[in-house]
C-alpha cells in the first residue's frame, strides 16, 4: 500500500508539473495516493517512511494539479462570458 501511494504520488506530481490539461486525472490519482498513504501509516506498515513519502508526494501533486487545473477551468469560464460565472 505504501509503494502504491508513492507511485501514485510521483505520477500525480508529473501530471501536475507537465500535463495540466489532464489535471483532473492527476487530482484523482493524488487523492487515491493520499488515502493509500494514510491507511498504510495507520496500519503501521513496515514501510511507514515510504508511506509518508507517498503521502507528501500525493499532497504536493494534488496542490499542483489544483492550481493549474482549477485555474484552467476558471480561465475557460471567464472567457465564456455569459455562461461562465462561478456561482
Amino acid at each position, binding site marked *: 500500500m505504501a509503494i502504491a501511494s508513492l507511485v501514485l504520488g510521483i505520477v500525480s506530481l508529473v501530471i501536475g508539473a507537465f500535463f495540466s490539461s489532464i489535471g483532473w486525472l492527476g487530482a484523482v490519482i493524488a487523492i487515491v495516493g493520499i488515502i493509500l498513504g494514510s491507511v498504510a501509516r495507520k496500519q503501521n506498515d513496515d514501510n511507514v517512511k515510504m508511506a509518508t513519502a507517498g503521502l507528501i508526494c500525493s499532497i504536493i501533486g494534488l496542490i499542483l494539479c489544483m*492550481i493549474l487545473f*482549477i485555474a484552467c477551468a476558471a480561465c475557460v469560464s471567464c472567457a465564456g462570458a455569459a455562461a461562465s460565472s462561478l456561482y
Partner: protein
Amino acid sequence: MYPYITFFGITIPTYGLLLTTGVVVAGAVAVRRCKRWNRSADDFFIIAACAVGLGFLFAWLLYVAVTYSPEELWNMLRSGGIGSLFNGGMVFYGGLAGGVLGALLGARLAKARLADFLNPIVPVLPLAHAFGRIGCFCAGCCYGIPTTSRLGVVYTHPAGGAPIGIPLLPVQLFEAGLNLVIFCVLLVFTRRTKSKTLVLPVYIASYGCVRFFLEFIRYDAARGALLGLSTSQWISILGVLLSAAYIAAAVIRNKRKGAEAPRA
C-alpha cells in the same frame, strides 16, 4: 483586477492559486486543530481527501446541471470527452454537499466516527472559502451590481468575466469578509459547545443567511431563477430551514435531559 500573475516566466491564473492556497491553509489549521483535539492526523487526511475529491466533483456537476441542456452536454462529451465537463465554473453548494458525502465515505474508510472530526474541521471551511472569493475578485467573476458609491470597483482586464469600465460592487470581498467572520464565530463556538455535531448546522445556517442576502447584489449572469430567487437562494433557504430544525431538535432534546449544554 489580476486574472493572471507571473512567477519566473510562468503565468498562473490567480483564482486557482488563491483557492488552492485557501485549501492548503485551511488544511494546515485543521491538522493543528485535530492534534489539539486528540484526533488522528491520518484519519483526517483520509476524510479530507475524500471530501475534497467529491466536493470539487459535485461543485462542477451542479454547475453543469444548472448551465447546460442535455443536448449541449451530450455534444460537449462527444467533442471533448469527460475532461470537458470540468472546463466550466463551480457551484459552492454542490461542493458543500459533495464534501459532506465525501467526508462520510472517508470516515467509513478510516473506520472513524465523523462526528469526532466535525469540531476540528468545520470551522476551517469558511476560511478556505474566503480565499476562494478573493480569487473570484481577482479573476473578475461573481461580481456585484453597478454602483455609484465609493465602494465601486472598475475592471479593466479583458480576460476577466466582469463588464469593463463600469463601477461594480465588490461583492466577492464582502463574502470573503463575512466568511472570515463566520470562521471566527465557529472557532469560539467549538470552544464553548459540548456538542460534537452542532457546528455543522450552525455553519450551514450562518452561511445560508449570508449567501441569501448577498445574492440580491450579485450581477453576474447564469444564476438560475425560480419565482424571482436564484438557485443558490433556494438552496440557502433549504439549508437554513434544515439546520434550524436540527438545532431546535437538539435544544429540545437537551432540555428534556435537563442538561445545560446541547449534546446532539
